[in-house]
């Protein structure tokens, strides 16, 4: 496996979506190609860091306001509907 072929499969590999044969070819490549190993490892870390990052959490007070605004508008919408 060449480095470009490895890159083509990287997303499938990280998502656990490879068949056993391709996975083992890819892991053989990773065993000797340090650059690809680093790219794979740091890409996996990138995903994990974002997944754990809790960016843009909705604060409780704003959340409460949004929920009541939504339900009020839904009720208005319902009453507008013809029977």
């Amino acid at each position, binding site marked *: 496996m060449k480095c470009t072929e490895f*890159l083509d499969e*990287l*997303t*499938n*590999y*990280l*998502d*656990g*979506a490879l068949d056993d044969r391709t996975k083992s070819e890819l*892991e053989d490549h*990773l065993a000797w190609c340090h*650059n690809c190993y*680093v*790219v*794979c*490892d*740091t*890409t*996996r*870390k*990138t*995903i*994990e*860091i*974002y*997944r*754990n*990052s809790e*960016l*843009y*959490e*909705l604060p409780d007070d*704003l*959340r409460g306001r*949004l*929920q009541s*605004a*939504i*339900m009020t*508008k*839904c*009720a208005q*919408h*319902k009453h507008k509907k013809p029977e």
Partner: protein
Amino acid sequence: MSTIQPNVQPVSEELELVRRAKRGDDQAFEELVRRYDRNVFRIAQHITQNREDAEDVVQDAFLKAYGNLAQFQEQSKFYTWLVRIAVNEALMRLRRRRPERTVSLDEDVKTEDDSLPREVADWSPNPEQMYNQAELREILTRTVQGLPPGFRTVFVLRDVEGLSTEETAEALDLSVPAVKSRLLRARLQLRERLSRYFQKRVTGDGNK
């Protein structure tokens, strides 16, 4: 090396809520709002990069879902359908704010590949611990905001929100290969940009 699996919620209980909401049970709909408002807010903030817009998107997306519940086909998950509505609302607001630029999910498909790794320096073993929480948040926000909207949206749905590739394709009206290709490029670009902050620091005595 371990793989990353998205979190998947059970569908049947949710479908029951949706059916009750369709029959006019507002408490059931409110439960759906409580279940997904945080996700919709995050997605909207990532796309619009603006808090007020994100608040509007949350309200409008749920209202639109409420008004169109009858159209919801039960072959797909309610959440995927809701995300599709929210993404469209968010893109509309982004376009309004940036009328000078065309904003679409297709705008950034370039022929030359700018995602190939150039910087392959290894990272510190615990990159998150190199910065305090506020600094880390700033780095991550700035970095993901630097991605073009089409890449950013795919990355957020797939890797932050944990939708499957197929669900992401459905929510964005893209093909599965298009989602995979954008996801790869988004991940590689983010990795490259984060390397600036997270690579191993060389100390004075030559140890890494």
